[in-house]
């Protein structure tokens, strides 16, 4: 996998990519004697190869156009721009952008948990890496920013909507990865959009946020998958409706999972908030800029907010169903805490989440240099106009040559950039800085205050006398574990708003008559995109290919006939071309 990141030759890249994909397959099917695991593995392999196919074509065309397999910055050649779509499709499958995510939930859910953590934390980021890398090197079509941002917003919203409706907690985490990839894509789309509109200031913010989110997501999602693995190990089930009350048996896992949940929802004072905040800043700047890009930045910002609120609901549900309340089944009641070897990595990851959240300035130099490398012309201190001339693809756009756009002070704690929002206002420096250091202090202060207030209240309660009693439940005399809200009932209200895309399968038998039989209500959310779009299309494809297959029957003489017919057709084609 490291190889993918380091090679600079297209052919080598493809080989490394393929090795990486096949390794992924073997990792997923480590537990290969289960049917579901094998199916998931096959699905992964098939979609992964569809992606590789796109990449093969991409690299092949690239090699044809440039005359070599060497990779490097090729921003000048505008004819390479359409290739971006191929790269987007190829890497997008790996990253799991929404309509291409079909392999992701089942692969993540069925792989062993440490593999899921690795895949979610690192492997799908390879797709993001590819998109960022090649959009930095190659010229991109003008529509790329719009498309990537729209895809990102869709992924974020629908990914989290699917996550909310899941009952299997590893599937929930997997869909949440789709959401987070969507958030990253929103940032990247913002960067592309800003680049194609010539005002790069907010675009780099969005890109920095996206890149930071790649790391953050790697940390907290791995933490959550480790937590999930420890729960799975202890109880043997992935269904949240069979769990509950695990905090009593597994306090460490519960606490660390809660920490990861706060991070993944993007709440202060942890790391998820920092990157989402940066992306928001970029989007808000774009909207305040009142350029055409505001038309897409505005819905993106709102959808990002929606996705954030849905993520809160999702992880409140996940945490509550697994760890809180009363145990719903015996296996949950008899769970045991994970060992030190499982706890250690979780603690380390939690430390990373906390550290990146409280001291975000640590990573800023790396981020700015990465964003600078992505867009070398602007950060090199050239004026925007010069950049516009250097980049032929942008020639059609009006240049908002605000005074001294982006001086070289990009690398530093604050991006000193003149906001391009008011090109005519004579350089009103409306939004000058990214106060990441201030944000760090705020987060630190918040964490400190929380710790202090929590301790204080705990002391006070202890001093006032704490008694234990059964849950009040409005005076109901015999509360039982089965009366608790389940994962389905928790998600019901919000996921009903998305039933148009979730398409839940319902089985219902109402209560009837005086001596009613048992009433049933079941609801399950299928892999809608796979089951209702891809598979029917594939079935249609199979029909067509079955028809074609009849040509393949084993009679040698007919094969010779085919050859003759083909030759005749080719010859007539050539002849026809020669006829004026």
């Amino acid at each position: 996998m490291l190889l993918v990141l380091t090679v600079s030759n297209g052919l080598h890249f493809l080989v490394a990519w393929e090795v990486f994909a096949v390794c992924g397959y073997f990792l997923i099917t480590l537990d290969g004697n289960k049917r579901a695991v094998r199916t998931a593995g096959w699905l992964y392999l098939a979609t992964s190869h569809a992606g590789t196919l796109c990449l093969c074509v991409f690299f092949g065309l690239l090699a044809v156009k440039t005359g070599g397999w060497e990779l490097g910055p090729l921003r000048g050649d505008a004819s390479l721009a359409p290739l971006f779509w191929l790269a987007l499709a190829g890497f997008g499958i790996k990253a799991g952008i929404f309509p291409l995510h079909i392999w992701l939930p089942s692969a993540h859910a069925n792989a062993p948990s440490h593999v899921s953590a690795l895949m979610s934390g690192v492997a799908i980021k390879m797709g993001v890496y590819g998109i960022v890398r090649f959009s930095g090197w190659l010229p991109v079509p003008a529509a790329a920013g719009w498309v990537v941002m729209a895809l990102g917003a869709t992924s974020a919203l629908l990914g989290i909507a699917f996550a909310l409706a899941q009952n299997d907690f590893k599937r929930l985490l997997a869909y949440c990865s789709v959401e987070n990839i969507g958030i990253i894509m929103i940032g990247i789309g913002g960067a592309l959009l800003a680049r194609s509109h010539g005002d790069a200031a907010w675009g780099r913010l969005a890109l920095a946020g996206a890149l930071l989110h790649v790391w953050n997501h790697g940390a907290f999602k791995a933490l959550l998958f480790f937590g999930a693995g420890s729960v799975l190990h202890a109880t043997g089930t992935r269904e949240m409706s069979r769990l509950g009350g695990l905090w009593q048996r597994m306090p460490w896992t519960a606490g660390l999972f809660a920490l990861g949940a706060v991070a993944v929802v993007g709440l202060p004072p942890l790391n998820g908030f920092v990157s989402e905040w940066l992306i928001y800043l970029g989007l808000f700047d774009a909207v305040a800029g009142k350029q055409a890009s505001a038309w897409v930045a505005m819905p993106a910002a709102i959808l990002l907010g929606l996705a954030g609120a849905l993520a809160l609901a999702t992880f409140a549900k996940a945490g509550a169903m697994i760890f809180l309340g009363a145990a719903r089944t015996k296996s949950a009641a008899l769970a045991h805490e994970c060992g030190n070897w499982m706890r250690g990595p979780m603690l380390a990851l939690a430390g990373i989440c906390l550290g990146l959240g409280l001291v975000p300035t640590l990573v800023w130099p790396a981020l700015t240099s990465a964003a600078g490398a992505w867009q070398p012309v602007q950060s090199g201190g050239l004026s925007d106009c010069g950049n516009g001339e250097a980049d032929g693809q942008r020639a059609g756009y009006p240049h908002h040559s605000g005074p001294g756009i982006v001086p070289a002070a990009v690398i530093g704690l604050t991006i000193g950039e003149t906001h391009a929002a008011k090109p005519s206002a004579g350089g009103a420096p409306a939004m000058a800085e990214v106060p990441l250091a201030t944000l760090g202090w705020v987060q630190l202060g918040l964490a400190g205050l929380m710790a202090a207030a929590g301790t204080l209240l705990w002391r006070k309660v202890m001093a006032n006398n704490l008694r234990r009693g059964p849950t009040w439940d409005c005076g109901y005399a015999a509360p039982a574990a089965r009366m608790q809200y389940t994962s389905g009932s928790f998600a019901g209200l919000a996921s009903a708003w998305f039933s148009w895309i979730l398409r839940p399968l319902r089985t219902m038998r109402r209560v009837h008559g005086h001596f009613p039989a048992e009433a049933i209500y079941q609801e399950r959310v299928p892999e809608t995109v796979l089951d209702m779009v891809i598979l029917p299309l594939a079935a249609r494809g199979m029909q067509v290919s079955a028809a074609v297959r009849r040509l393949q029957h084993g009679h040698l003489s007919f094969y010779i006939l085919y050859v003759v017919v083909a030759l005749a057709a080719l010859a007539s084609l050539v002849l026809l071309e020669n006829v004026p």
Partner: protein
Amino acid sequence: MKLLLDLILRIDCWLLLAPLLPGIINKVKAWVAGRRGPPVLQLYYDLARLWKKGVVMSTLASPAFVILPALTWVALLSAAMLMPLGPLGAGLTFRGDALVLLYLLALGRFCTVWAAMETGSAFEGMGTVREVSYAVLAEAALIAAVLSLSVQSGSIALATMLGPPLGAGAVLLAAGLFIILLAENCRVPFDDPNTHLELAMIHEAMVLDHSGPPLAAILHGASMKLLLFAVLLVQAVLPIGQLQPLAAAAVLAAGVLGVTVAVGLVESLWARFAFRRVPLLLTTAFLLCLFALLVAWKGGPA
């Protein structure tokens, strides 16, 4: 030193004034209904009493059940520190603090929700589901509102965002923010803070099992949140930044009082909505904020 003094004064201001608001609302409601009603300072008495009381905790709940209300309270207090107070300005202002404020509110919600689910009670589950689900719609409306403020002022720092007057979009924004205020603070028509019919509650259902000092923290936090939204509404709509400091303070106070009375009147005159109609109202709020945003963007009519 001066900074510290300012901070302490500000904290006192928020801490001491916030519990007035529910008292005023209750007084207005009593007045409309022709009753005498509880004293305006009732919440202060309640808080003092609760602070001295012991705590009964569910056997299912973890120690976090007691601690989380404190975290909610801290999140809300920190949000209040970011909110400018007319001529006083904000305790801390930086670019992007508006978003920090939004996410602090979300943090407060997350802590409340987590504590509610600790008890394994069906009622708390019910309240939680409603809270997190309606928050999704309210969040969209809030983001649109903040975007519109940001667009018309060209800034993402609350202190400058709330300064200039809004023009034609102000009416739209005011209506939208008022609906959000009602929803976020669980007032009628979204929730009935007075009801004892548990099936119809959101916030009250979530905090059913709390008692003693944690409950005091929750109640005080809720009143701070109400004050926060009232201050936001008044400053977003009225051109307070252009007035003399004293006049600005007076206008701000009057505005907050007006909003509080309006909440009381709404609660007296409207019934709580059926839950299936809540999304419609929140969508309306979202659209109001969205149109305010578009008006701010395009310069709008007039």
